[in-house]
Structure formats: structure tokens, C-alpha cells
């Protein structure tokens, strides 16, 4: 029913959005860890709305892929990798809410060129990086763990 190129086109959109997202998240988190210290954090964190746009594109294309071929991800039986991926995404959401609600984001906005970030900012950035790597890990395991349980 679908033309053969529909799936690779959605996958390409999904990948490009993820790359854009990874570029922004990666650079912000690495700067918080001290890479590229010459950069002030406020203009870097202004890129966050673009990360949200990239995430929405990635989620929408991911949803389209699920509708075309739900088998690998949704089961039945439950795909452990897909469940773990969603758990990682929810934890990322909570981590981000904590970052904004605790006032940490505003504190980090005040970090100028050459200045160090606080330990709590580094912890939140570290959790963010680990969870994003987790999202990619479980996405890769999707097709290999389909029907594992």
C-alpha cells in the first residue's frame, strides 16, 4: 500500500531531527562541563527552543514510523527496549522540569565566558547526557529485542 520510499524518508527526517537535537544538547551539556569555556552560557541556552522544535519533529516522525510498522516497538509481547526508551524520555522531561523549576537554568544563564558552572548544574547536565545516550541505546536495541519477553 505504501510506496517503498515512505519509511526511509520518515527515518531520514527522524535522524536529522535527532542530530540537530544532539548538537544542541551536546554543546550545552559539554559547555556546562567546561568544554569551550570561552562561551557564555546564556546565548547557548537560547538555543533550547530549537532543541524543542527538533524534539517535536523527531517525536512526530517517530510516531509516523510507529503507525507504519508498529510490530517491532509495540509488540505484543512488550518490547523491553521500547519501554526503556520511553522511560528514559520521561526521566529527561522530569530532569528538565527540575532544571527550570529549581532556578538552576537561571543560575547557569549567569555563567559568563571563562567561568565555571556549579556542581548541581553539572549533575543535571550529566544526568541529561546519560539519559539521552540511553534513548539512542534503547532505540538501537528495538529491532533486536522485538518479542524478547
Amino acid at each position: 500500500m505504501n510506496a517503498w520510499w515512505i519509511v526511509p524518508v520518515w527515518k531520514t527526517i527522524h535522524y536529522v531531527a535527532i542530530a540537530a537535537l544532539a548538537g544542541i544538547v551536546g554543546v550545552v551539556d559539554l559547555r556546562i562541563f567546561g568544554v569551550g569555556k570561552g562561551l557564555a552560557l546564556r546565548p547557548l541556552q537560547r538555543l533550547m527552543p530549537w532543541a524543542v522544535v527538533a524534539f517535536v519533529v523527531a517525536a512526530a516522525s517517530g510516531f509516523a514510523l510507529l503507525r507504519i510498522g508498529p510490530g517491532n516497538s509495540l509488540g505484543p509481547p512488550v518490547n523491553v527496549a521500547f519501554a526503556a526508551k520511553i522511560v528514559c524520555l520521561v526521566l529527561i522531561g522530569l530532569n528538565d522540569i527540575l532544571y527550570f523549576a529549581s532556578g538552576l537554568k537561571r543560575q547557569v544563564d549567569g555563567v559568563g565566558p571563562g567561568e565555571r558552572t556549579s556542581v548541581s548544574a553539572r549533575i543535571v547536565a550529566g544526568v541529561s547526557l546519560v539519559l539521552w545516550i540511553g534513548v539512542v541505546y534503547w532505540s538501537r536495541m528495538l529491532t533486536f529485542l522485538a518479542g524478547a519477553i
Partner: protein
Amino acid sequence: MHVIQQWTEANAFFIWLRESPSIWAYPTVFFLHTIGLVFTAGVSLLIDARVLGAARELQVAPLGKFFKPVWIGFWLTAISGVVMVLSDFETRVTNRLFPLKMACVVAAIVLTALMRRRVERADLSTPTRAMAAASVACWLGAITAGRFMAFFQ
């Protein structure tokens, strides 16, 4: 070509990689390839976007410090990529899209190497911007060719 094919067919590591049902075999190498690629392409695209005029309030020169992590990501992608190609040599290299993907990757990485000094000097001249535009095209080309490869022979 034939020699490589025979070697990988007989090599214990590549046999394990091809045939083991363990997620520590092929899926893990595939994961390392993906994480390296997404990071390398993503950070490169961000630097390209800045060079092309996005986010003007971001200082250009300190962005040069991000080329080091980009290279680490590139080597992770390249090494895991070579391992995956060798694990199924003939099928991969004869894929019609393989040369296109390799051309995009090689061009993208050459551009990255050429751009490093220019970004460190905050040089936003026309040649630098042309390189950034070409780099965006190459990364998009590499990702697209990579996604379509699985649907081609």
C-alpha cells in the same frame, strides 16, 4: 576485495559478530556507530549554522573547542562503521548507495578539518561560509544515503 571477503568469512571475531544472537555483538557496534554519528553530525551542523549566520550572539572562536569532541565522535563512528562493513563485506560494498554515502562522509570530514582553524580565528569570510554550506549538504547526504541503504541492494 575477494581476499577481504575470505578473511572476514573465516575470522572468529567477524563470525561472532555476524552470528551471535547476543545484544553485545552486532547491536552494540551499531549503537556505537549511531551515537558517534548523531553527535558528530549534530555538533558539526550547529557550528555550520553559526558560521552561516544563525545565533549571532554566540561567539565563534570558542566554538573551535568543540572540534575535539567532534573528532572523537568521528573516530567512534568510523571504526564501528568499518567493523560493520567487514562483518558483511560483499553485501555492503556492492550496495549501490555505499559509494555515495562514503563520498558524503569523506567530504564532510575533510570540510570539518578545513574549517577548524577558520572557526578558531572567527573567520566568517565567504570561503568559510561556502564550506559550512557544503558541510550541511554532506551531512544531510550521508544521513539520507545511510537510511536508504537498507532499502537498496
